[in-house]
């Protein structure tokens, strides 16, 4: 698990690529593109992206730093062990579902 900082415009994860990392936003904003749907994630929840890594699937969304962004990058097992049973884990799943529902036009 490590703390990373990205500059504005940096592509943190890219749809179709498979990596073993889940990201938790500590400060700043991240633009998420899922199909034609776009949204901004921030540290408020705090928000998480890259959950696909937990099941060894390629990322299904592209996430780009908006301004300077600080994140915690976890290996999938670290996220499972530390966060899944916490509010961060629950909110991550809700946010993941919400983005999907928005992209599908359900909500």
């Amino acid at each position: 698990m490590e703390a990373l900082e990205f500059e504005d415009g940096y592509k943190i994860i890219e749809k179709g690529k498979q990596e073993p990392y889940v990201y938790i936003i500590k400060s700043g904003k991240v633009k998420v593109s899922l199909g034609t749907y776009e949204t901004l994630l921030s540290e408020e929840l705090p928000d998480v992206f890259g959950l696909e890594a937990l099941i060894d699937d390629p990322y299904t969304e592209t996430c780009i730093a908006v301004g300077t962004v600080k994140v915690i990058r976890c290996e999938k097992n670290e996220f499972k062990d530390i966060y899944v049973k916490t509010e961060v884990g629950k909110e991550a799943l809700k946010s993941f579902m919400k983005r999907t529902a928005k992209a599908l036009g359900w909500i």
Partner: protein
Amino acid sequence: MRIEGVIFKKGEIPKTLFKIVSGTVRETRNNTYHDLTKGEYVALLEYLLGLPLEDDIIALEETELVETDIESDYENIIRNILALRKIMYQTSVDFENLVLDDFNFETENIDEYLNQIESLLTLSGGELPEDKEKAIELIESLEEDKLFTKVNLVKKFVERFPEEQIGAKFLIETAAKVYIVLNDRYVAKALLKKVLLYYPHLLDYSYEAVKTLESIYKEEGNIIYRRYGKMAKVLEVMLRGSA
């Protein structure tokens, strides 16, 4: 638990997360249903986001459900959500260009195709009254023995009154009759494609047209049925979310 019938009622916010062990559960949104089976979760969206259900959720047959929670099923829930995303990507059709680019008129140029239909349909006579209500009355009064006249009048109706939703209904009903009574796939398909050309904003009629096109192409052994199947999936997903 084993259950048959209503699991959650319309307006209810699901407080329990059920996973399907066996059986079939039907979720309905905007009069369009989606059947869930083994390994899927009942009302996952509404449970996670705390949203009220738009309609009853029903076990269609004796169904075994097991109560679970987010922590226990974390990874499997992600798989289920990703399955939804995959449907979206697999059926990704550029909706801005859906009408022109994705209806697949085989090798024919769309204008040539429509001109052929035009020629075919003008073989049948029949004048459409200028008055909309009288036109509707006339079309509705025509029986099966005047099917081609009906086809011709319906075609004229949708061109003259493109904003009238009943035109989509006429096209679908007439296409079905042409297919059943005359077994004319060519005209039936043309009428159904007109629904998509004239009424792409009416998702329910477009869905019905696409599903029928899928059936017709499948029956004639044309692989294009798969394309319409994909389009139907997209429309179904849109209908589920547009209540």
